């Protein structure tokens, strides 16, 4: 097995073999972050540009740390400090960055397909760190990596994804990746947050009630409610949402006794998840963050070390 792609734009077009290869590679990178000297020379002399047109702390930091632990030179560019605020178009920004000969561009943009467009335009490898509500592949892969520490990834596994599915690139990337591995995905959301056609995807089960979604599942993945979207009235009130869809101790008891709880962060404590659950030993939320670095190291290594002519 080889990973021969130039870019990582989504999980939708990844094969099960590619996903497993990425996870297996990431497994080997975990140990580097536990060393006294957390650095290997693998990407020495390579330049990684983190191009973030949307605010992000965790993902950008995670990519930056991953690049630095591989000895790459990581440069951060965020929209608020870039020429975007001076009116430059995305294409001009990208052309300028390409002119500085980076090896990898990590991009987050509010428009669906932004990373794809950039990938077609530049010779550098492009990693999609979120394009609108479309995909966020490294998040899904780090979620799988975290699951694999506790569960066997395969047809015997059932994962519940609960929350704002419609606006979540995390949910989308997870649904593609999980179903590619034959894992059953139950989704549950208020009707206003549920995209149409979900139940047509093989392996996806849409549940109306959260209790139904949780019954006996092995993994519970809670999504962040985007409070900033609340002006669009997707649900009556935050309190109602917490009451009907929030994960609390009683609801978690419906899941399998050894079920794990995941959240891509940042959490709204008391809304989609109670502090009791988030801080319990069932939660693997901080492991997700730790694994994010290893997974992104594997991705940068596999994309960045090779010439794509």
């Amino acid at each position, binding site marked *: 097995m080889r990973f021969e792609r130039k870019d990582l734009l989504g999980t939708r077009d990844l094969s099960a073999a590619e996903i497993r290869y990425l996870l297996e590679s990431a497994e080997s990178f975990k140990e*580097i972050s536990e060393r006294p000297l957390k650095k290997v020379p693998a990407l020495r002399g390579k330049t990684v540009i983190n191009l973030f047109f949307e605010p992000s702390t965790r993902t950008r930091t995670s990519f930056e740390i991953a690049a630095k632990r*591989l000895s790459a030179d990581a440069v951060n560019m965020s929209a608020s400090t870039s020429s975007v605020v001076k009116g430059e178009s995305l294409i001009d920004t990208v052309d300028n960055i390409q002119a500085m000969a980076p090896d990898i561009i990590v991009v987050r943009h509010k428009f669906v397909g932004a990373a794809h467009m950039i990938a077609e335009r530049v010779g550098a490898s492009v990693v999609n760190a979120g394009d609108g509500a479309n995909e966020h592949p490294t998040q899904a892969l780090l979620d799988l990596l975290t699951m694999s520490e506790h569960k066997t990834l395969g047809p015997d596994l059932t994962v519940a994804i609960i929350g704002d599915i419609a606006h979540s690139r995390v949910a989308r990337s997870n649904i593609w990746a999980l179903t590619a591995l034959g894992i059953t995905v139950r989704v549950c959301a208020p009707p206003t947050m549920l995209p149409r056609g979900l139940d047509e995807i093989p392996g996806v089960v849409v549940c109306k009630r959260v209790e139904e979604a949780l019954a006996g599942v092995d993994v519970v993945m809670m999504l962040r409610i985007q409070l900033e979207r609340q002006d669009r009235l997707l649900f009556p009130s935050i309190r109602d949402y917490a009451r009907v869809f929030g994960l609390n101790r009683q609801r978690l008891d419906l899941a399998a006794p050894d079920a794990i709880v995941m959240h891509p962060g940042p959490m709204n404590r008391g809304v989609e998840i109670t502090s009791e659950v988030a801080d319990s030993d069932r939660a693997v939320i901080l492991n997700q963050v730790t694994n994010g670095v290893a997974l992104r190291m*594997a991705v940068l290594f596999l994309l960045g070390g*090779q010439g794509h002519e």
Partner: protein
Amino acid sequence: MSHRDEHSISSAQDVAQMLKRVAFEIVDRNVDSEKLVLVGILTRGVSLARRLQKIVGETIECELPMGVLDITLYRDDLSTATHHPVVRKTEIPFSLDGATVILVDDVLYTGRTVRAAMDSLIDFGRPQSIQLAVLVDRGCRELPIAADFVGIRVPASPQDRVMVRVEESDGFDKITVMPRDTMSGESN
């Protein structure tokens, strides 16, 4: 794989003898070492290090700590390699500070693997010394590196392929030399 033109150097029995001698030499030279550890280079170096660990353990009645090293991320040809070798897990579950490290590999050829391994080891701490044990020294060095303990010296040209097979990964122990054009896609 074609076994035509394959010239067998050593059988399983010979390999066992060589390892035994190397183990004794290691013990002999390091009687005074306070912290002697073995580190095998993946894949076959690890199998050989495990066997050395067993023989040394039986000799001095004390089990030496053993680590596993993957040198992929330290290779000097990463940017020119057409594809990446799979990165495997490095496991050094002890401190290398002040340790005498016996680095173990199957074949010593250009010396580049050993260079990468030494760089990697030094990132884990400051060993008192690093000594190199190999089953086969085939010559043709490209870097100024020499082994401290050698099972067998096989003078071979760069056109030859020297292959060590070990029971753990190949089902049997054997050292062979064959012309490069008859070999399979595997490389050292």
